[in-house]
């Protein structure tokens, strides 16, 4: 635990981020350093939906990726409360991290990162299996999730690579939310959806909070934030500029 930092962790926080720094060193351009996060502190509690808002390049996605360890933070602390107790993710061994990822928290990126030549049902079922379901249960859960997002059944065994952007995004969201873990990281999960599908997706995300899932999400679209978020965190230049309820924040922005 980071004792240097004044902010203490709330007891019911699923995720506690403290003093998180991240920068990129580009060796191909004379070792140029590109800063990304400048000391982020953030807690996400059970059943809470925290929306990250802010201009492009502010560090919203980087924050999600640092939590997921797709990016390796320079310094700071990311603590996840798991079934077995709190775990520091920034220094966790690679193997343990790989195991934790599937089971204890999920990450839905903006773009589907499905293995090539696999179909939606297989992709979603694979995630469900990683989260502890057996083969038959996993297929059932996957089918239910795809139904819920209105993905046409004729597409279920079609290579994800040939799906449209919106279809891919729904597969991605179905995979992320099937058998939901205690923490979900969502990176613009509805950006490519038409209004009807978008509504179904937002409903699905909204229902997660009711199941006790903590959500940390990036949305560009203020309507979505207004509809889903219990708290809005405004990020600018790699720092949390301000935070509050959607009403407060959107008024301030306006």
């Amino acid at each position, binding site marked *: 635990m980071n004792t240097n930092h004044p902010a203490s962790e709330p007891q019911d926080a699923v995720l506690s981020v403290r003093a998180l720094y991240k920068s990129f060193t*580009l060796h*191909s351009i004379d070792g140029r350093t590109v800063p990304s996060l400048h000391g982020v502190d953030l807690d996400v509690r059970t059943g809470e939906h925290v929306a990250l808002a802010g201009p492009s390049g502010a560090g919203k996605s980087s924050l999600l*990726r640092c939590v997921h360890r797709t*990016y390796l933070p320079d310094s700071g602390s990311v603590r996840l409360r798991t079934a077995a107790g709190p775990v520091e993710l920034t220094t966790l061994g690679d*193997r343990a991290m*790989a195991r934790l990822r599937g089971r204890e928290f999920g990450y839905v990126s903006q773009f589907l990162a499905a293995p*090539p030549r696999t179909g939606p049902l297989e992709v979603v079922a694979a995630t469900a299996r990683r989260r502890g379901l057996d083969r038959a249960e996993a297929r059932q859960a996957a089918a239910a999730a795809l139904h819920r997002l209105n993905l046409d059944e004729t597409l279920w065994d079609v290579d994800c690579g040939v799906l449209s952007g919106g279809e891919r995004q729904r597969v991605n969201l179905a995979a992320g939310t099937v058998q939901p873990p205690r923490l979900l990281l969502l990176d613009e999960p509805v950006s490519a959806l038409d209004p009807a599908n978008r509504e179904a997706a937002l409903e699905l995300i909204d229902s997660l909070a009711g199941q006790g899932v903590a959500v940390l999400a990036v949305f560009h679209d203020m309507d979505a934030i207004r509809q889903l978020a219990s708290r809005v965190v405004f990020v600018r230049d790699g720092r949390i500029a301000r935070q509050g309820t959607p009403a407060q924040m959107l008024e301030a922005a306006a």
Partner: protein
Amino acid sequence: MSTTTYDTAQPSGIGALVAEADAGSPPAGILDEDAKREIRRACLAAVCVPGYQVPFGSREMPVARGWGSGGLQVTLGVIGADDTVKVIDQGDDAGVNATNLRRMIARTTGCGESADTREATVVQTRHRVPEEALTDRHVLVYQVPVPEPLRGVQKSVAECARMHAEGDYSAMWVSLYEDIVRNGMITASTGYPVLVGGRYVMATSPIPRWDVPRLHRAEQLNLFGAGREKRIYAVPPHTEVRPLTFDDVPFEVEHEPGGRCKFCGSDDVYLVNAGTEGAFACSDTEWCARVQAADADTAAHRERAPLALLPDPAARAGRRAAPLVRKTPADDAPAPARRTRTGGPEWALRVDGIGKVHGAGGASAVPGTGPEHGTAISPSTGAVVAAWDVSFDVAPGEALGLIGESGSGKSTVLRCVIGDEPATAGQVHLASVDDGASEVLALPPAVRRRLRIDSMAVVYQDPAAGLDLRVSAGGNIAERLTAAGWRGYHAIRRRAAELLDRVEVPLSRMDDPVHTFSGGMRQRVQIAKALATEPPVLLLDEPTTGLDASVAAGVLDLLRSLLSERDVAAVVVSHDFSVIEALTDRTLVMQTGRVVEQGLTDQLFHDPHHPYTQRLVAAARR
């Protein structure tokens, strides 16, 4: 071209001198005492180690090599003046060869000679064991044409010696398997392989299958001499001699249904074709004559005849067309038990500080090499430091990637772990070996080879490195299974079919030699073979390199689903980020023989830190 004619009618010159000398001298032994001592020493060693081929200093004999020079030397080595010799050629005492050999032996040693097995003490034979009962008074000496049972499957003499030393007879089993697959039965007639004393596989050359049971717990001493190959081996009395045969494919002797000797009427003897169509005669002319003269105990003979081993087509493998893939658990022959781990380490494979230096200097050649020096060539000794200080471990259900450009040392690391080349430094531990306590690299080569059967399997870039291309797809899998102790032909067939089905090789191709397969199909067979014994560790060396893109994609998909459905610990070596990304959770990046970065595979791809990794990632984003 010129022809020379010799006048043989009038002995003159040298011929006359030789004739004069022969007439004047007493019968001289053909072998001097040193030669006999050499032969007796070899015979004693052969008796002490039944079935083992003892080399000996073979002499030139007055018969050509290949005409019984080995048998003759053994006979002359063991016979004494108080012995009686009998010589059989093709079961016949009266043939020119047999007669000449018998006379020569008798005249040069002073022993007695007889065509009656009951009187003989030393029987030299080509092709048969006499039908008459043999006792502890008999020494049976075989003239051996092909002493090496592995000759048909392995050309290298050194490799044959290794296989015998390690009891590694899976190649022999594969040849039996292939024979049954092709012909529905074992077709080898003479030289049927037997396991002697539970240890050595021995060729029963020159006798037919009919006589093979006569070696099992025999009363007589059996000595086998091969003059050309300079080998003597033995089956002492009361030794276990079991024909190599699958548990569910019975050993059969030769038999002609309804066949009967046209002279003596026997139907319980080894018969040969006799003249007219469909007529047979006893191969053993002595026995035939005595049966006709009513001087033979035919009741006792019927007891020893291998009538229980007559061919039974109903029991044959080919006739039982059991479905190969749909299995019913009831008729599943039990597979050998696999070691199951309890407790032990978290990892299945651990590699500590592996290093390989080609050339002089060993560890002292290492300073001055590596990524920071930009070279793998030692400035002090000129040696190539192919890999140094590489460490990792892999847990069950996990896949680890090793990525780097050609020459970065990744394949070297894998080869050192497998044992394809000796490591200069470092340690390897396998959880399946003493719960990880033993250092694998320090184990004897024979033990390490065994590890590759059931503890650690490899899939090479080149299928030819992991497969015998002359052997069928099923036979290649049978090799791994028989090495692991499987002895049920049908169980092996079913397992092979199940594996080939899993890797999507059509079962109609199962019995085709692998050299008739395409590259992608070969790679699938190699993968099936690697998985045959469900080893806890699987090493993949550039498994899709060299295949064209669509085929490579298919193999990659197969590997991905195979890894996801198993608790195997996998190491994947590749220069291709897409392969590493598709298969692995964690990755080590190697450059100039060193690990320069490691981490979660997606983190290395999205947030590479080392300049080299950044270059690799940039190159992968075509």
